[in-house]
């Protein structure tokens, strides 16, 4: 994946001299805007297939990046928030849709295993509210500054997060 990221960023530099070509291609435009605005935290930007773009972002820049995505790049709709547990990390995966270009951005935010905390984006997209509650309920991801981070599918007195791999039902 790192090789793909390098290749695409090199490709973005090549077409830097021809801005009209970049503007014609929404996938490149999004990747370039992310990489230029948050050079330290965005990595591994790649085009997966037409209409789907993937990028990793550090959790410290998640909120400003999402605000930029909605306000400047037209990503008005958050399709899905998924939480995945790996051996050494949690990943919160945001699929964000643009209604103008019909593009989906897959934004992956890794968090450490002992501190699964990310900023809430429900102030940016109201549709993220319940999805973040669901990720908290089932996977135990804590969303900072969420207006009401409570369990939503399971009863309130449950003590476990069932989608974690160490949970045995």
């Amino acid at each position, binding site marked *: 994946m790192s090789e793909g990221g390098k290749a695409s960023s090199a490709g973005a530099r090549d077409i830097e001299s021809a801005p009209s070509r970049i503007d014609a291609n929404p996938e490149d435009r999004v990747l370039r805007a992310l990489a230029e605005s948050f050079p330290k935290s965005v990595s591994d930007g790649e085009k997966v297939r037409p*209409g789907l773009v993937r990028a990793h972002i550090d959790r410290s820049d998640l909120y400003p990046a999402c605000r930029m995505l909605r306000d400047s790049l037209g990503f008005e709709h958050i*399709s*899905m928030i*998924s*939480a995945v547990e790996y051996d050494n990390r949690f990943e919160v*995966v945001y699929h964000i849709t643009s209604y103008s270009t019909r593009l989906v951005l897959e934004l992956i935010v890794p968090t450490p295993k002992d501190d699964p905390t990310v900023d809430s984006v429900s102030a940016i997209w109201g549709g993220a509210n319940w999805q973040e509650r669901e990720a908290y309920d089932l996977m135990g991801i804590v969303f900072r500054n969420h207006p009401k981070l409570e369990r939503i599918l399971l009863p309130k007195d449950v003590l476990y997060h069932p989608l974690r791999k160490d949970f045995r*039902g």
Partner: protein
Amino acid sequence: MAEMWINMGPQHPMTHGLWNLRVKVDGETIVDAVPEVGYLHRGIEKICEGKTYTQIIPITDRLCYGSSMTWSHLYCTTVEDLMGIEVPERAKYIRVVAIEMQRIASHLMWLAAYAGDLGMSVGFTYTMRDREVFVDLLQALTGARLTYNYPRIGGVAHDLPPNFVRDSIRATKYMEKRLKEYEDLFEGSKIFMMRNVGIGVLKRDDAINMGVTGPSLRASGVSYDLRKDRPYEAYGEMDFQVATHKDCDCYARYRVRMDEMWESCRIIRQALEKIPQGKWRIVAPRNAPAGTGFGRVEDPRGEGTMYVVGDGTDKPYRLKVRSPIFVTVSAAPKMLVGYKVADVVAIMGGLDMCIGENDR
């Protein structure tokens, strides 16, 4: 007047399924609303982690009792994306036919429930009767009436049965006649119109911000339909319109669903006329590679999305299901506040709630 909370549900004729709507009323006027879901949570995402890829197809059928075909189809497209499989052309057309029949059946079930909610029992019986036409066709195609287990990873389970093309085209023509009759029946009813027009307004900006998708979004004036915007299967070859409406109210949501049924009839006919010969299934590998797959389709209720993580074995490491109605119902307070308690039935009924996919 003193404000008070009323529980509408979990056992209430308005809740199609098991969920609870807490409304805060000031006299008859709603001032706040809190939907509570989770009564039907079965842990499907966790169950899937312990099953092989093929075994999951019938489980995803159980996500929604109203439109199980779209969910198992969505699951298969997601896993095909993970495995990098290209489906044969004929299977794509068969899938389009099956999904559109499912869409008509789902919308008719919604219309039946909605008519029942609004006190038109005759609407319930008519629509349920005509839904049988498509349920019978799906039974001829798949062998089951509600949970089909028909799409496969790499195609569909069977080819079209004998005379299916003739019967389906006949059914769509019959359906178009009936749709005309429904429109006269519902829109000619003064009570139906009084309970719909101007009720439950969800403004365009609110609909976009709250993540509402599907007919409810298109009824708020946003033209967004994945069949048109990101054509999957054979939708790129089809000639159809995206149904939208600019009124943002319950009537607009009813109108969008009616228009979608008209368009579905057209799509079914086109797909059956253009369907190519050839294989309808290729054999998929048992194990998926390590990586991720992402699929999304236009479910009758909105944008259905799945995200699957494979780890090289024959079982998914993680399967995430995005239910459209789960996000749509979180926008319910925006539609409810300011209207009367009696309008709750029309507003929530107009969303086409399906608790099976909502709670997963």
